[in-house]
């Protein structure tokens, strides 16, 4: 039996293995950020309009609803779930806000309250179906999606709601989109547009809750192994419910921003939100190399999409080429997280019921 003297070839192995791991971890962690910075740099150099502060805020404002809905999906993903109803919830919020102000003749504050309650209820419905009725999350939220789209159309008679529109009985609607509501889109706090403030505030809030508090840790524990979390004393049902309710709330905030932007209760609003929200939350899993749903990653994913769409538009790329660009970005992100990463990626969206 021959024994290697300790630390002979092994020291070399140690260094080589260590360096390789560090490089790989670095690529995974910062690769995506680098892509974003490079793109911003490229557009800023080639397009003078791109590098103005107005454009920077404009991009963030443009992407805020998508980003906030994406944060909602991200929250559902922390408990190992998924929410396909975010787009529908946002659309529901648009119509309900308009209906409350225009038909119900209420001020914007009331509309905001009604919409948020509605969003929480949609989240609670999802939680009920998933947690209590034990329907797999993909199916449950798909069902909810149809239900609330249908409910929205029933409430507004299938029509878009605009200020002073003609009602079914021939009279004209009593209310209109009030200035306080429109402030949600057009207002500024200091130099910063309100949607951007809301977007950043929610990102920071979710980052803090998820990464720094015991509640966030518990959410992740439920997502990692629900049975183990339960045995460790975590109220699994409560946390899963909270995640879906939170998701519903975030989706309705996204809807409020959309409604304020459009200035009317467009029935088709929110239709394209689902796929974008899903994309940014999934991109968020991979960027920063965290391998799990997280707030900053999601926000960064949204920013990158905004940069691409704006930049492509400015350099004259037709709108129909932009989805292709988004697809490439998502592909790159997923390659980073699943193929190049040595860390096991935990999230398996939409596969759990128990």
């Amino acid at each position, binding site marked *: 039996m021959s024994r*290697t003297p300790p630390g002979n070839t092994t020291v070399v192995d140690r260094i080589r293995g260590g360096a390789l791991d560090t490089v790989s971890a670095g690529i995974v962690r910062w690769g995506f950020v680098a892509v974003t910075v490079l793109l911003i740099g490229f557009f800023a150099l080639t397009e003078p309009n791109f590098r103005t502060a107005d454009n920077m805020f404009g991009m963030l404002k443009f992407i805020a609803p998508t980003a906030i809905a994406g944060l909602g999906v991200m929250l559902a993903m922390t408990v190992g779930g998924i929410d396909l109803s975010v787009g529908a919830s946002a659309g529901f919020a648009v119509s309900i806000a308009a209906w409350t102000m225009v038909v119900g003749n209420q001020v914007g504050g009331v509309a905001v309250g009604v919409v948020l309650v509605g969003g929480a209820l949609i989240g609670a419905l999802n939680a009920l179906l998933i947690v209590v009725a034990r329907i797999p999350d993909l199916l449950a939220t798909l069902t909810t999606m149809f239900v609330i789209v249908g409910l929205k159309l029933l409430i507004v008679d299938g029509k878009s709601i605009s200020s002073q529109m003609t009602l079914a009985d021939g009279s004209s609607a009593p209310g209109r989109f009030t200035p306080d509501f429109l402030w949600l889109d057009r207002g500024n706090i200091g130099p910063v547009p309100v949607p951007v403030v809301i977007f950043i505030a929610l990102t920071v809030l979710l980052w803090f809750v998820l990464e720094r508090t*015991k509640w966030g840790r518990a959410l992740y524990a439920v997502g*990692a192994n629900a049975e183990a979390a339960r045995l*460790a*004393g975590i109220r699994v049902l409560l946390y899963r419910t909270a995640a879906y309710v939170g998701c519903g709330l975030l989706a309705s905030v996204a809807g409020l921003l959309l409604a304020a932007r459009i200035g009317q209760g467009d029935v088709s609003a929110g239709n394209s939100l689902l796929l974008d929200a899903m994309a940014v939350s999934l991109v968020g899993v991979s960027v920063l190399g965290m391998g799990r749903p997280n707030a900053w990653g999601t926000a960064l994913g949204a920013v990158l999409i905004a940069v691409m769409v704006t930049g492509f538009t400015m350099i004259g790329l037709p709108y129909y080429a932009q989805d292709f660009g988004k697809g490439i970005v998502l592909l790159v992100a997923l390659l980073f997280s699943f193929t190049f990463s040595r860390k096991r990626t935990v999230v398996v969206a939409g596969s759990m019921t128990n």
Partner: protein
Amino acid sequence: MTHDSTALLEGDDRAPVVSLRGVSLSYGSNVVLRDVDLDFAPGRITALLGANGAGKSTLIKALSGANPRYAGSISVAGTEVALTSPTVARLHGISAVHQKVADGIVPGLTVAENVLLDNLAGARGVMRSRRRDLAAARRALALLGLDWSDRVLSQDARDLRISDAQLVTLARALRHTPRLLILDEPTSALTSAEADRLFDVLRALRADGLAIVYVSHRFGEIEALADSVVVLRDGTVQSHSPRPFEWNGILHDMLGRATELAQKREHVHRGGTVVAEVQGVPLFPEARPLSLTIRGGEVLGVLGLIGAGKSELAEVLGGLARPAGGSLTLNGAPYAPRRPGDAIAAGVVLVPEDRQRQAILPGWSITQTVSVPFLTESSRWGTLRRDLETDRAAAVVADLEVVTESVQTSTDDLSGGNQQKVIVGRWLSANPRLAVLDEPFRGVDIAARRGIGAHLNTLAQSGNAAVVFSSDVDEILEVSDRIVVLVAGEVALDGYADTLDRATIVTAFIGADTTPERTTA
């Protein structure tokens, strides 16, 4: 014992089936195997021993193609081969049952399909016949003396308890006759009757000329089964020894310090105050109500076969399951936890039987895993304090001598026994009023077992209660002051360790003392 300098064991002139030369393996910067030379001869059972984290499972992963990133050479029947995948290894006649049972089970497939998994993976037989599958699966299980109904065979394998899942993986491996069969702690989840049956099968295979590698932390099994012992420590081969085994030397090679194989309890404590009482609780539908008093100041060992109601009792105490009838008290007051969280708040902690399924959080660090039950203690205004979390984890790692590079290491990267130590340690760090441990020694080495035993003793001596559930007589004898034998949900024997002898316990346990003494001093 001989510290051989030649690779072949003395007097063994048969050409080895599989030889390793200079095999090394590292995970990142952590060198886990260094220059291992080994030969496995046909018709021999080689026991591979070593402390938790010594590199046993890693060696097996290299040998079975599960980790092809090894350096050095492995030859089969004299020709060097590249074991790049489990399929390649199987083609060369090497087949393995790995330590993590859950990894060997495909959830979503039926139990029968799991037994026949290798067929499903193969190119042949695209069309499956349910009836033929059931028959084939039953034949495979019959080899282990199991007679499972079609209903069990057709259910989703996800729902199997760990012992049954282990039997499925064993039945699968035994369906083929490989040249080298490797079993990594196959009995840690089995009861003695099932283990004995497995040993009969292994002896028969040995007689057929198979080479067998067998990993276990239960020395009684090694004594009963193995032809030679190889000790691994820190990734290097420390010694080979042929029979008869000289255990003190082997233990020294394993742990690097002198350790007694069998440890007699010096003081058998008699408990005082009643900590918890179980009154008339039926453990399963057909069982008669069970009553049991749990006292502070003593370690209570509950011995029982699978199906005796051990896990059911543990789950009732830990708030995982509601009792079907009767009542519980804790510290004299009624105790009816609705969920594990209630039990924990009341000072009752449960170490569950299946760590992979019930305790490990994939991808989580040791610190985070240790911290999960203590999130409130480790936070202020809801904000987690990393320093408190790290302190607790560091204490657990130091206490139970967990082999790891740091507390930030992912629990996925720990050896099986070290994962178990992290889980047991985190619950003991709660300083519970009542600690309930269901098979806490599963996969831990002898030193860690002693360490956990000492902890339980300390806990009891501070007036609290500890209940250890196990299906291994010797484990129970080693840690318990008081011993309760559970048979079909009822107490068959209840007495203090110094008033009972082993034969009495075993008789109560399995009806008659048929098992050989598992530890030999």
